[in-house]
């Protein structure tokens, strides 16, 4: 072997090692995706569904992603630390899954311009900070239809968390469905001022049922209202996750948040380098909302519900199609138009037909 060829061999080997090293580094360098949760992953509601989304992400990408989460993160001073620690720890994509994380997420996103952040249910965006939410009002409308068909007492109950637009919008969607499919049916609202408090939620369910309500909706995350409805022999509509197994004789449907498709899409976009900040609204059409309808619902009612779902999916029907009047009778959404996302995002009035007053 001549000297030049030896040299070439050495160079070749060195290059090969170098190449494998870079390839190896590339293959062993998964995208790090972090999740910040407001509740415990075993809450069977909101956080549980986000955790299901994370599992879907792992299933889809395997070794190409490395994920982790921190659960029960309080929305005060702690949130910023957890979010920043993720960014500092080299996480490329961080999902912060509760409204109260908005300002901490926005602050950390500014300090870590190379990382990507997505905040659920908020309204602040930045170059590397997007927002996403599920249009649960679509599910509530269909739930309102089922309630209209199944109620005997013409009284529907709603266990509400906080009077924010998301909750008000969902209450309104139900009232609109009730007006259309069973006029004269009334929605009664109890505010529990919590997202997760099984004791208070059960108390609220009992109070509603004592007032004659025979279909109970909830905008809270624990299965307690479902269990109460099952025990008291009335119907219920689950929220966040499929709660049918907590009340097989009570649950007509659950408004299931299915975050997997959105998490997969966003992660793919970050991997491909074409992620863009946006305000993403996912509903029935996007697969972000699912409505498993129970066999308790008669076949003809189910068929009609599926027609409504199909209409929402193909865009031929919108729950907030005008004319929509508020309690005073003022026109809020004009006839012939549908509510814009901005109008829905700022909704702070009850629609006509609801007799209760909004808190404060």
């Amino acid at each position, binding site marked *: 072997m001549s000297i030049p060829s030896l040299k070439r061999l050495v160079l070749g080997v060195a290059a090969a090692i170098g190449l494998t090293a870079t390839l190896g580094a590339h293959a062993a360098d998964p995208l790090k995706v972090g999740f910040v949760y407001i509740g415990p992953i075993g809450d069977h509601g909101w956080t549980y569904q986000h955790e299901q989304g994370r599992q879907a992400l792992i299933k889809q990408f395997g070794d190409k992603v490395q994920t982790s989460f*921190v659960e029960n993160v309080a929305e*005060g001073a*702690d949130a*910023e*630390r957890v979010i920043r620690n993720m960014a500092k720890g080299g996480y490329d994509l961080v999902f912060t899954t509760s409204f109260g994380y908005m300002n901490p997420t926005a602050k950390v996103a500014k300090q870590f311009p190379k990382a990507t952040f997505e905040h659920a249910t908020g309204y602040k965006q930045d170059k590397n900070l997007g927002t996403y939410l599920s249009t649960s009002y679509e599910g509530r409308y269909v739930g309102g239809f089922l309630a209209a068909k199944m109620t005997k007492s013409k009284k529907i109950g709603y266990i509400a968390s906080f009077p924010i637009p998301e909750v008000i919008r969902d209450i309104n969607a139900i009232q609109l469905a009730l007006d259309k499919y069973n006029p004269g049916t009334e929605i009664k609202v109890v505010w529990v*001022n919590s997202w997760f408090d099984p004791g208070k939620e059960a108390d609220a369910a009992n109070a509603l049922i004592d007032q004659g309500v025979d279909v109970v909706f909830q905008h809270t995350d624990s299965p307690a209202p479902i269990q109460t409805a099952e025990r008291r022999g009335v119907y219920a509509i689950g929220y966040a996750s499929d709660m049918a197994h907590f009340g097989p004789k009570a649950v007509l449907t659950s408004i299931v948040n299915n975050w997997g498709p959105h998490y997969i899409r966003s992660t793919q976009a970050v991997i491909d380098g074409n992620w863009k900040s946006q305000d993403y609204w996912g509903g029935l059409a996007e697969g972000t909302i699912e409505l498993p309808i129970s066999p308790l619902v008669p076949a003809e009612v189910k068929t009609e519900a599926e027609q409504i779902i199909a209409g929402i999916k193909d865009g031929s029907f919108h729950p907030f199609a005008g004319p929509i009047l508020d309690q005073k009778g003022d026109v809020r959404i004009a006839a012939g138009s549908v509510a814009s996302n901005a109008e829905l995002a700022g909704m702070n009035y009850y629609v006509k037909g609801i007799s209760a007053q909004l808190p404060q």
Partner: protein
Amino acid sequence: MLLTLEPRLQQSRRHLLLSPLLAALLTLLCGALLFAALGHDPLATFHTLLIEPVQDFYGVSELLIKAIPILLCALGLAVAYQARIWNIGAEGQLLIGALAGSALAINLLDWDSVLALPAVILTGVLAGALWAALAAWLRTHFNANEILTTIMLNYIALNLLLYFVHGPLKDPEGFSFPQSAMFADASRLPTLFDDVRLHAGFYLVLLAAVAVWVLLSRSFLGFQVRVLGLDSRAAGLMGFREKRLVWLALLISGGLAGLAGVSEVTGPIGQLVPQVSPGYGYAAITVAFLGRLNPLGIIVAGLLMALLYLGGENAQMTLNLPQSLTELFQGMMLFFLLACDLLILYRVRLGSWFRPATRKHTEHAPA
């Protein structure tokens, strides 16, 4: 009985120092067994839980931020507990301090003055003290048990806070989400260094620790407080005015809890939110007792508590350890610390099976 406990005539000074060490050893041992049984390398897990969170300056600064509200509450509680005034209401006093301070701060959004911050802080302190004063009044006028009244006032405070943050103090430009506007810089506690969140609340803790130490150990007032705690009859015979001391203990602990609350909203949070406190006022009760109601001990205990919070987060993030497991570890540590304190007041003896004569002897011995 295999083991018997025998009261000591005096606190054992040796065990006063040894019992925390023994507790730490037992915690590490049981923790190691727990982590190993679940398939985690114990040493690596301890490193993640206890060392990694504080191995750089940023980590230490975050530890201090977490400890500040706990320490302020616990220092105040030490004064009350020395007098055997069982203030369980630090959480509510903290929330009221945060609420009142915020109410002023969002009315000072355009007031760019050096007086803004002191005014906001003072409002928080006074509001916390006022909230505790309700319990003091109920106790001194109706002899209402302060344990019950302070607990109940916690719930009232939380719901007042929720009412205001959903109502009058809500950010008008915030799409009616429950939070106030961000405060102006003039009413924010300044940060001490660039790039970290550590704020001037740190100095407030040092100040409070020295003040509480001077009060309890170096002043006649503190002496009266301690006598009241040890023997209220003796305090009465010596002419100490019990009612005045009850007021004093509750006002000081309420004021410091209010300071904790207002330093959270003007410090790391920067606005009023419904979740000002993830239970700092309750954690402070544990910290006050772990620190043996002594300012220095409280600082050590508070930092330990804060470290366990940070370590738990870190273990979730880097080891995917479930939160319940790290909470179990925290619980174990608190359990052993309190259990080992038994040794300070009691002697453990091998019991009757081996030395029945000794037992008989101790039973008949005068106390």
